[in-house]
């Protein structure tokens, strides 16, 4: 267990900032950190620490899978860089686009499909799947 020493600051911060279901495992010289972050800020903080310990994520010795817990019925903000967010028929970029979410628009979370895709509904009643990375979950 050498990697848990290298990434000690990251593990300690995950523990102290309320990451739930936290698992830290080392397998074949790769450290796997899994868990649910209580907010997007905590997730960002963990990634900043990761980037500080291993600049530009070059070492290939950590898989950091800490995602923000999705609450059904909660609101989320569309945080695309500038363009509109594609709302799709199913969870995949090969699925048809059924609508668009405007930059900074608030949408309602209906269901989490996996760590990448969530089912949402807009205020104009457009329902479909969006890529979680482009939502700021609250």
């Amino acid at each position: 267990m050498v990697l848990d020493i290298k990434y000690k600051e990251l593990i300690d911060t995950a523990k102290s900032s309320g990451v739930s279901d936290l698992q830290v495992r080392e397998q074949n010289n790769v450290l796997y950190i899994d868990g649910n972050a209580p907010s997007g800020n905590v997730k960002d903080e963990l990634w900043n620490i990761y980037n500080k310990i291993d600049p530009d994520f070059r070492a290939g010795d950590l898989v950091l899978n800490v995602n923000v817990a999705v609450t059904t019925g909660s609101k989320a903000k569309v945080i695309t860089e500038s363009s509109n967010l594609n709302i799709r028929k199913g969870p995949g970029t090969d699925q048809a686009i059924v609508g668009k979410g405007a930059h900074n628009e608030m949408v309602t979370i209906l269901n989490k499909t996996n760590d990448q895709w969530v089912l949402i509904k807009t205020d104009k009643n457009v329902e479909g799947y969006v890529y979680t990375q482009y939502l700021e979950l609250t």
Partner: protein
Amino acid sequence: MIQIKAKSFLYGFLLLSTVQFAECKSKPKESDTSGQSTRIDSSATTNTPSAPVEIAPDDALQTGLRDATKDYPDVKAEANNGEVTLTGSITRDRLPNLMQSVNSLHPKKIINNLTVK
């Protein structure tokens, strides 16, 4: 007489250096052993869950990578036995977002060969 003195001095020097060499050799062995016992101690006290890490199959990784890299036209991603290799180029400000997506796909390992601009 001078020759004998010189010879005995040489033998003495050789003997001394052999002893010193042997001492040097034995020291790392001791520290190796103590290092090993420390490692055993630390693993015994670490609270590590025994469940093995779940690694996604390559086809699931490929689908996930297609979605994750869709908005990064200069990035290429391949999955091979759970290992994801990223090639191409990206700007530094967008790298964390891409890495966050790739890290959530349950890969075995991520090899980042991207040129960061």
